[in-house]
């Protein structure tokens, strides 16, 4: 392990910013620390870099306890959200500044600087002053400056947040490429689920100063461990019901019992549950789709005999054009509204349809789950027209 955190806690006047955080980063890994703003992730990485001293817990770098060590002895390359290039130095001098602290020979120093400016594609901008560089170029110089001393760990604290969208995607790709080429162990801190999922080998999701979940991005997305992780990692839609059977798993939703392909955990029949699913994973069957559409009394039939049905009849309440797809809201018998994404011509409002629950991709939570379907508010939902993860 390059970095190991063991119960790291940081309080500000009794108020915990980071509470009992433990995780490790293996050599060469790119781990994203993902969480909403104010979740303590910046405090956490500042503690790793040595700029904030933990109130409790230990931090080890390459197996050595560095909890009380100053930043200059830690060999951590740091890139902040805002540019921290020195305005009184050129791009070359900025990169050389970090190299000079550890390399005395001016010739090999210059060679290192050139090598890293080349790595970020700015070898011709060495004489430029930071003020004359574009926002994206400044980020690249900062990456070069952080990497040139060959740190044990590269920490990127919201490196893309101050950039506009197209620049953001390009720089994100550049970070992934640089990570591939240099193999530097990287901690990528972000509040943006898409950035995190696009580059990270592993996610550490944080909420309220604690680790909410860790794991590979796709796994956490499809099978979120908590309601927070579910809604933070992307768009969610959910329907509440009552567990009626565990093998196979069945949930009664309104007057319909449906088969649900999910893990029951330690829940028992009779428990109130929320079935969580990604809108994109839901199927939509229209009236008139001769083969598979339930007719008007389908609900009765499903309850009576359709033991293996994974379909929920309902009525379209709203259709919104989201560009690459339509968001179709469907009210089902329980009164819940589910959102599905439909790429073909959408049904009309008021039309009777059936929602089809997918095989896998359904997660059961307790009652009271609040889905995050609103685009643009809070966590950035997946599946928007400009969604980079698609």
């Amino acid at each position, binding site marked *: 392990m390059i970095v190991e955190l063991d119960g790291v806690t940081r309080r500000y006047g009794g108020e915990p910013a980071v509470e009992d955080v433990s995780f490790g980063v293996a050599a060469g890994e790119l781990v994203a620390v993902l969480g909403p703003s104010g979740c303590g992730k910046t405090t956490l990485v500042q503690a790793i870099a040595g700029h904030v001293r933990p109130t409790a817990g230990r931090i080890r770098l390459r197996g050595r306890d560095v909890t009380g060590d100053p*930043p200059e002895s830690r060999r951590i390359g*740091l890139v*902040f959200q805002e540019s*921290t290039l020195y*305005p009184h*130095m*050129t791009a070359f001098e900025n990169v050389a500044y970090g190299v000079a602290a550890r390399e005395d020979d001016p010739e090999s120093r210059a060679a290192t600087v050139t090598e890293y400016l080349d790595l970020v594609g700015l070898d011709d901008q060495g004489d430029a002053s930071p003020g004359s560089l574009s926002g994206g170029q400044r980020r690249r110089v900062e990456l070069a400056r952080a990497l040139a*001393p060959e740190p044990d760990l590269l920490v990127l604290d919201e490196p893309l947040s101050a950039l506009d969208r197209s620049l953001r995607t390009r720089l994100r790709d550049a970070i992934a490429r640089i990570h591939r080429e240099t193999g530097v162990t990287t901690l990528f801190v972000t509040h943006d689920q898409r950035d995190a999922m696009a580059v990270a080998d592993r996610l550490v999701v944080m909420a309220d100063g604690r680790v909410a979940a860790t794991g590979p991005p796709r796994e956490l997305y499809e099978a979120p461990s908590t309601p927070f992780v579910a809604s933070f990692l992307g768009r969610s839609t959910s329907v509440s019901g009552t567990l009626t059977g565990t093998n196979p798993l069945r949930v009664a939703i309104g007057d319909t019992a449906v088969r649900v392909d999910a893990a029951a955990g330690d829940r028992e029949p009779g428990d109130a549950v929320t079935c969580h699913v990604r809108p994109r994973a839901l199927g939509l069957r229209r009236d008139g789709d001769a083969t598979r559409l339930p007719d008007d009394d389908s609900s009765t039939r499903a309850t009576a005999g359709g033991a293996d049905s994974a379909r929920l009849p309902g009525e379209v309440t709203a259709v919104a054009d989201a560009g690459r797809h339509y968001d179709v809201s469907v009210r089902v018998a329980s009164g819940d509204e589910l959102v599905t994404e439909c790429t073909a011509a959408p049904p009309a409002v008021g039309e009777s349809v059936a929602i089809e629950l997918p095989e896998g991709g359904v997660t059961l939570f307790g009652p009271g789950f609040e889905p995050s379907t609103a685009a643009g508010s809070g966590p950035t939902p997946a599946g928007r027209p400009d969604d980079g993860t698609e």
Partner: protein
Amino acid sequence: MSVADSVRSLVIRRPERAVPVILGALLLGYFLLPFVAFLSRTGRVAVVAGLSEPGARAAVRNSLLTAPVSTAIATIFGVPLAYVLARRSFPGKRVVESVVVLPLVVPPVVGGAMLLTVVGRFTPIGAAAAAVGIPLTDSLLGVVLAQTFVAAPFVVITARAGFAGIDDRLERASRSLGYGPVATFRNVSLPLARGAIVAGVVLTFARAIGEFGATVMVAYNPRTMPTRIWVDFIGGGIDEIVPVSVALLAISVLVLTAVQRVGRVPTVIDR
């Protein structure tokens, strides 16, 4: 179109702009008028001859000896303090901040009297210093003490604002690049706050070389330019003080432009 016409049309068409223009112009006129009236007397008074008098030359020399020393002391002791005040929080910080501005709110002449109660001839400190041949009153050292007391807050306050204006992440980045706190201060904080520090130095110097109230209490002799001006004025009226006053003015303006120029030149980009 005459000035009056322009003003009239401005008042009618753009009253929201006319108010600051008129008020500002009156204030600036009030600033400039004394300069013009005073300097117009240079025609009637022989400035060069006045300055070649031994007394006047001694005053100029004394001021040029003491004010730079006071400014240097204030800068050396004040800039690190300014940095700490800008970056650290500690118990009692507010008290320290109040102490920094104390010499500014105390009238200089009172400040001089207060200094006398510490370094005066009959105080333990003053007596001890005089005994070893370093009198702290009525000496150039006394002038320096008075000037430093009155002028030092300027460099502290101005430099502090300069340090506070530097994003502390620039310093964190330097630490993470392998530099300790002192090297970071030297390589990053100091160069980036240079403009503010230079401004503070200029203000401090201008205040020190023009200091009168505290100086006259602590060191009536040897004469500096301001004390000489006062003594001459009591003895001979306005025309008597024109030569030294012009010299004082000229030195202040020279230092201001020179230091500002030096302070600005070598930055890669000017912010």
